[in-house]
């Protein structure tokens, strides 16, 4: 009964979304106030229905209802309940249901937190989101119904893919989808601006926080995916330029550009057309990312096996959304108008250059990701584009962007001068160069690439320090404020910028030092053998049998010695998940601020010994630390008091303007 009720709820949701789209859009264009009034409540109803449907699926999983095909394919009675919950979004159908849940959630949020937005704009925005929703709900109901029954019911389920039975993998999709779906909000704002022909700094002020939150979530989602690949796949790598990774990275790059472009539109009224175009591009890449994973053309642990019918629907929907929005853009963009002028040396031009570089980087990643797919689709055989291409292309494009990250926040709006900038930044510049040249010697080996990475990271970090220092000095120079008082009076959005940029610096340090100084050893070990890596000696002391809830396996007990003294003990495991008969490596990782010690069991050999892989990874956690710092910066920026003030002000005058 429960699955049918859930199914019905989703069908109702589709009907509500259709009504919402029709009345909101036509009402806004024609000026029918009563029709426009439909948009807000229908968003709330849509979310309620979708959440209800989602709960029905979750209940089916938690109660082990193997008469539901999705539960039988992705769960098992021995599966711990937390993973049974996660299994509800572990499959193609379930993850789509999560997607529409998030979409309806964002729509409800937009309906709730948009007091200052005029009724017709809000109606257009919710109407556009409803159109997107129609596409996804139809896709779900027509081709990917998670509520399909399996009759006669299975005795037990096929179990969740062991690779997904992991906390990191559980939150990775929700975070990622919050980001992907979140970009639909700014997309809807952009389309609404095009339709209405109204795009001003107020529009930018509304859309900016939505974009930043979505971006922060996407950052976390990507970081989680990378971290998971590191500790779960057993190879110690954190980024493979895998098509599926690229599919999430491209919207991130364009989303970053969009965030910065919105900043200019809000502060200076410039870059309007560019911002709208970026919003369309970012969301299109989000859709592309969501769908690429389901197309069946990718060799990846992510790839869901799908049938051609789904692929055709997906492609059609994608072409429609991108085509229609670009057509609308081409038709209506001139109505939106141009912004203010600015000099060649100014904050605007720094941000513009940064934008262009980010988009070019995204385009080159797109080329490397889609080209093999195109060739394959045209029947020219299967090729793959190796990671060296992406590294060779991405890093040189990002280098000037990182350099500009130091300059942009310090440059003045509209017109800045090179001598002025040079004077303010010369200390940071020279310190960066000197320390970047010296640090590799401290680490052991000197290399160009390491020095280059460090220069960029230290430059960005120090430029941020200079920025803060200069600002504090200005505030305390009049004598009536202490440094501490000035510090806490600075707006959250300023700290958001500083933290996010420092996050980039931390990230680059991690990437550079791990790439330059990681050590990997594959050795054959029996009990009593040792292997040395860096300052550590690792000794295999014991191998014990494992008995888990839905797996068996072997666990090694490895002593970690420094100068003969045991400082730690690590327990790598090799598991065999009984239902799917799938082997899994559970690496043992000793995490530290300056290095990770990583041990994974490879394969057992006939004589009872094991092939063991040992890694020493310096500063690898700075990679994800940097990413989380970036996301934190985003959250800080959104928590700025001017957004709260704005909503308070419009609360008092709100109802007068929304007619």
């Amino acid at each position: 009964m429960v699955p049918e009720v859930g199914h019905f709820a989703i069908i109702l949701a589709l009907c509500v979304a259709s009504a919402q789209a029709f009345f909101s859009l036509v009402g806004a264009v024609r000026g029918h106030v009563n029709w426009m009034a439909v948009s807000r409540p229908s968003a709330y109803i849509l979310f309620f229905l979708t959440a209800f449907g989602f709960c029905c699926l979750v209940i089916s999983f938690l109660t082990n209802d193997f008469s539901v095909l999705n539960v039988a394919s992705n769960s098992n009675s021995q599966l711990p309940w937390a993973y049974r919950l996660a299994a509800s979004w572990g499959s193609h159908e379930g993850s789509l249901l999560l997607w529409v849940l998030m979409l309806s959630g964002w729509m409800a949020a937009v309906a709730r937190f948009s007091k200052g937005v005029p009724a017709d704009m809000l109606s257009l925005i919710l109407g556009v989101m409803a159109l997107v929703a129609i596409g996804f709900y139809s896709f779900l109901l027509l081709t990917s119904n998670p509520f399909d029954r399996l009759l006669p019911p299975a005795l037990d389920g096929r179990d969740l893919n062991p690779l997904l039975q992991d906390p990191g993998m559980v939150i990775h999709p929700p975070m990622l989808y919050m980001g992907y779906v979140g970009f639909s909000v700014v997309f809807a704002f952009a389309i609404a601006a095009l339709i209405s022909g109204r795009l001003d700094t107020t529009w930018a002020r509304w859309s900016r926080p939505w974009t930043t939150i979505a971006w922060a979530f996407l950052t976390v989602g990507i970081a989680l995916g990378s971290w998971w690949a590191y500790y779960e796949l057993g190879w110690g790598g954190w980024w493979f330029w895998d098509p599926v990774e690229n599919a999430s990275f491209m919207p991130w790059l364009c989303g970053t550009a969009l965030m910065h472009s919105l900043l200019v539109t809000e502060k200076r009224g410039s870059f309007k057309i560019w911002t709208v175009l970026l919003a369309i591009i970012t969301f299109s890449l989000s859709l592309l990312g969501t769908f690429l994973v389901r197309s069946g053309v990718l060799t990846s642990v992510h790839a869901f096996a799908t049938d051609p019918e789904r692929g055709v629907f997906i492609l059609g929907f994608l072409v429609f959304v991108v085509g229609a929005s670009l057509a609308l853009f081409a038709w209506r963009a001139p109505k939106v108008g141009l912004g203010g002028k600015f000099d060649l040396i100014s904050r605007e031009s720094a941000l513009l250059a940064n934008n262009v570089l980010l988009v070019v980087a995204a385009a080159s990643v797109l080329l490397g990701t889609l080209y093999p797919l195109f060739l394959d689709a045209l029947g020219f055989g299967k090729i793959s584009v190796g990671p060296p291409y992406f590294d060779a292309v991405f890093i040189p494009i990002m280098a000037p962007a990182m350099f500009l990250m130091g300059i942009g926040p310090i440059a003045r709006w509209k017109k800045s001068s090179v001598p002025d900038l040079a004077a303010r930044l010369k200390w940071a510049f020279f310190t960066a160069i000197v320390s970047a040249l010296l640090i590799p010697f401290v680490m052991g080996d000197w290399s160009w690439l390491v020095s280059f990475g460090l220069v960029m990271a230290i430059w960005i970090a120090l430029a941020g320090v200079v920025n803060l220092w200069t600002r504090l000095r200005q505030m305390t120079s009049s004598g009536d404020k202490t440094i501490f008082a000035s510090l806490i009076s600075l707006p959250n959005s300023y700290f958001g910028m500083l933290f996010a940029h420092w996050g980039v610096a931390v990230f680059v340090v991690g990437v550079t030092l791990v790439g330059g100084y990681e050590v990997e050893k594959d050795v054959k070990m029996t009990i009593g053998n040792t292997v040395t890596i860096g300052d550590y000696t690792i000794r295999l002391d014991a191998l014990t049998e494992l008995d888990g809830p839905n797996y068996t396996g072997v666990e090694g007990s490895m002593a970690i010695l420094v100068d003969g003294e045991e400082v730690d003990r690590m327990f790598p495991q090799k598991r065999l998940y009984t239902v799917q008969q799938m082997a899994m490596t559970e690496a043992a990782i000793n995490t530290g601020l300056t290095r990770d010690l990583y041990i994974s069991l490879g394969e057992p050999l006939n004589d009872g010994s094991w092939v063991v892989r040992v890694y020493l990874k310096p500063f690898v956690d700075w990679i994800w630390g940097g990413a989380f710092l970036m996301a934190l910066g985003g959250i800080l920026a959104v928590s700025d008091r001017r957004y709260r003030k704005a909503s308070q002000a419009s609360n008092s005058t709100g109802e007068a303007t929304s007619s």
Partner: protein
Amino acid sequence: MKPRHKRLILVLLALALIGVGASFVLKAFRSNLVFFYTPTEVFAGKVPDGQAFRIGGMVLEDSLQRQNDGITVQFEVTDSIENVPVQYTGILPDLFQEGKGVVAQGRLNAGGIFVADQVLAKHDENYMPPEAAEAMERARKIKMESK
């Protein structure tokens, strides 16, 4: 005329940068394309010399052999028509099994053995990488045509 000259120079500069950037990207692209060949094609000598490429198919049952150092393995990849011997030094991915799909990237050495740099473990829910599935599909077509 000054602003106009400035703008012209700017446009030319931008075009030059784009040109340089594009040629750079395409060069990096071309030198990193890895082509895929089925065991039949490898056996027939269709693979260009010395270049890295990918091979895919099924791991031949009972073909997995470990060398004495414990880390180097040999096995055979088959598309049910031809078998190609593969040698790999390193830990095989968890999903690697005899009788299941596999994709490896590497080079053919002088002795006709495929020396793999990577053995790929990525696959879909059916434990068959698309490239391996492709190899089996092409072999099936050849067999049908020869009937």
